[in-house]
């Protein structure tokens, strides 16, 4: 029983230490304080893979992420089986200033053990500082098995550093199924259909009150990013994944004709006063509408469609039912023809700044099927799709998560990571956003693309 009392003491310390931060940790502490702790919890997993890392009891791993309350709680809950197995304590810290603060902490010699980096571009920057540790072989093996498509995004200059964690699908158009069926509209299956449907909606609703689309790109200092998703989605569709890769890695310039074509297609919707901005006003209002609020007019009939990633699910008012027969639902942003299925995705990369055994063990856990399934089980409201293709999709609670997983695992799908996250920060987190914002407020296509091209660092 020596082990047990030690464990209990460790848990107690952990509870005191994180009491102010995490309700979940308290909950798990209470469970264990109640009595028979070993192996009694619901999410028990096979502990064998972590025993190879040696005695880890009482060790601590710090995690730094951009995932903050309330989304952090289910995340923390999904670590419990690992903590039960090994006795390692995971210290979770979420910050909205994550992207700005992480490089500062790394430079200051105060790096966390693990950070969930949502941008491969930032990973490359961090690797350049020399602080990032390559992924241990156990993680590499898991990634090979569970998420082969994501390997390239965690690889910098031929060395594999980071496994993917969560995944989300960005190529969604949100709509109201009831509004569609009342007006007799069908979900479009090609880009041309989508434009034709937009024309039809605009013709059916003359005047300024109702428009086919609503959009908003205001996001504080990150204003403009939703438009970059539009451009990326259309690049994938009009130019194809190969050209998309060249564009992202700057093998073709940003003002290449292929990009101009994609931007022109986006402009057919976003810069057309007939099509936008339902519920808000003219094209310019896109720039001042917060992205979280931009989809709301779908609910009161101000607009019919809103393009936004799967995380839009969190932006609907409380009580909005999401599903095929609910208040709102999403369809896949159609490709140019039905034979191809490009998907724009996003996700986080588990970046390690330490190679202590407990850190390696935790990395291994995060890249395992066990974690992906635990994440689905402890999910809560949704947004728990992981990059892990061997995870059981049936465990996912929300309809949207199921649809996302279906799209991601479709054999025909050509998934590509969000391009602005792959580009250098000077472009992907600055001039691309700024350029697209200015484009919305009036700058023409050519000037916009030329501006972004000249900002690409040599």
């Amino acid at each position, binding site marked *: 029983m020596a082990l047990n009392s030690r464990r209990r003491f460790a848990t107690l310390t952990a509870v005191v*230490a994180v009491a102010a931060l995490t309700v979940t940790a308290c909950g798990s502490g209470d469970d264990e304080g109640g009595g028979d702790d070993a192996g009694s919890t619901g999410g028990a997993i096979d502990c064998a893979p972590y025993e190879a890392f040696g005695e880890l009891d009482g060790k601590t791993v710090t995690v730094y992420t951009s995932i903050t309350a309330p989304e952090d709680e289910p995340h923390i809950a999904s670590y419990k089986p690992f903590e039960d197995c090994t006795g390692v304590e995971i210290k979770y810290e979420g910050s909205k200033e994550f992207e700005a603060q992480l490089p500062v902490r790394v430079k*200051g010699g105060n790096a966390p053990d693990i950070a969930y980096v949502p941008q491969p571009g930032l990973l490359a920057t961090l690797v350049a500082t020399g602080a990032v540790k390559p992924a241990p072989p156990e993680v590499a093996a898991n990634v090979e098995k569970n998420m082969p498509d994501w390997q390239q995004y965690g690889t910098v200059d031929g060395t594999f550093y980071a496994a993917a964690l969560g995944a989300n699908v960005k190529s969604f158009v949100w709509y109201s199924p009831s509004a569609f069926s009342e007006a007799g509209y069908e979900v479009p299956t090609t880009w041309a259909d989508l434009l034709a449907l937009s024309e039809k909606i605009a013709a059916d609703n003359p005047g300024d009150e109702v428009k086919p689309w609503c959009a908003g790109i205001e996001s*504080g200092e990150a204003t403009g990013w939703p438009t970059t998703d539009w451009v990326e989605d259309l690049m994938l569709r009009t130019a194809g994944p190969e050209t998309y890769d060249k564009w992202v890695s700057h093998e073709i310039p940003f003002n290449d004709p292929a990009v101009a074509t994609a931007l022109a297609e986006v402009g057919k919707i976003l810069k057309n006063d007939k099509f936008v901005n339902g519920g808000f006003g003219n094209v310019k209002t896109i720039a001042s509408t917060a992205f979280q609020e931009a989809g709301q007019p779908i609910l009161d009939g101000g607009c019919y469609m809103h393009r936004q990633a799967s995380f839009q699910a969190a932006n609907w008012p409380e009580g909005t039912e999401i599903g095929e027969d609910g208040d709102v639902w999403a369809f896949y942003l159609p490709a140019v023809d039905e034979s191809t299925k490009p998907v724009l995705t996003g996700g986080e990369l588990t970046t390690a700044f330490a190679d202590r055994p407990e850190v390696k063990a935790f990395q291994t856990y995060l890249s395992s099927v066990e974690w992906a399934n635990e994440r689905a089980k402890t999910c809560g409201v949704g947004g728990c799709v992981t990059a892990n293709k061997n995870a059981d999709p049936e465990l996912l609670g929300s309809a949207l998560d199921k649809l996302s997983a279906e799209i991601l695992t479709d054999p025909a799908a050509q998934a590509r990571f969000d391009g602005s996250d792959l580009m250098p*920060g*000077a472009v992907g*987190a*600055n001039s691309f956003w*700024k350029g697209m914002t200015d484009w919305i407020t009036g700058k023409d296509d050519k000037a916009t693309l030329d*501006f972004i091209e000249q900002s690409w*660092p040599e």
Partner: protein
Amino acid sequence: MTANVLGAVPAGIIPEPLLRAESVAGKFFLMFFAIAFFAAVFGLVLFLASLFRGRTGEKWQGVVFVGPTLLLVGIGLVYPAILTINQSFKGRSGEDAYTLSNYTAMFTQPELLLVLRNTALWVILVPLLATSIGLLYAILVDRARGEAFAKALIFLPMAISMVGAGIIWKFVYQYKQTSRPQIGLLNAILKALGFETQQFLINAPLNTFMLIIVMVWIQAGFAMTVLSAAIKAIPDDIIEAAKLDGVQTFKMFRFITLPSIRAALVVVVTTIGIGTLKVFDIVRTMTGGQFDTSVVANEFYVQSFRANAPGLGAALAVLLFVLVVPIVVYNIVQMRKEA
């Protein structure tokens, strides 16, 4: 310069638990530790100073008192400043070979020139408007009935943080289509008067002026308070003598009030000027520097921490420093003259 400040503190100089106080008890412990530490250092300095007596002892006392300050200013200010200046000459990343590229970019790229133009607008307009409004108000309410209440009204915004003020005014400027219910005060007034509603924060260059109004709103109270105190300090006999000589209202202001409060005016204008040069919160809260409203301090942050161009960010910080220095020097020279 934040990055450099943190970088300058070697890892491990502060015990790990104190860097990350996470529990409530831990935070309180950290607080008491800091207070006790401060008291201990202070006591030590006083004790050391008391050891020296006599004529030469006084010199040593001076050294003991000034030494810690110099040391901390050196670590916290001078060293990072030198690092930043050095970085600004080393290309975009701040780590390449020495070059002037960041400075040429600053004065040639249209986007950055716009930033400089905006900063110039701010620095000219805010001190001018805030001081004139504050001065006018101070004179108008001077010795009037309900003076204290009137002063409190204009001084209140001073108590609000810049971020808070930014959020408040963002609501005031909020845009909705003319046909819809308005939640922005300004557009509600426009609509009630029968005009089209306006996107105050989007339409350049109007939006920069709309942001400047927020800063003036905050700073006018400061100007009013200081100037009002200065006006009250004018000796009554001067005013009475002037009145006996038949000096009229405007001449009284021009030849009696203004010269008497000159020192206070200089302090107010320069203080607001320095504050305006460094303005960041209002711009970041209200527009994020978008729609052609960015200013030097905001652009410095964007380039350093978001665009991954710390070299260019450092160059902007150096520019800010160069612009602030003459104002500070002028301020000191003026204060010396008065003393």
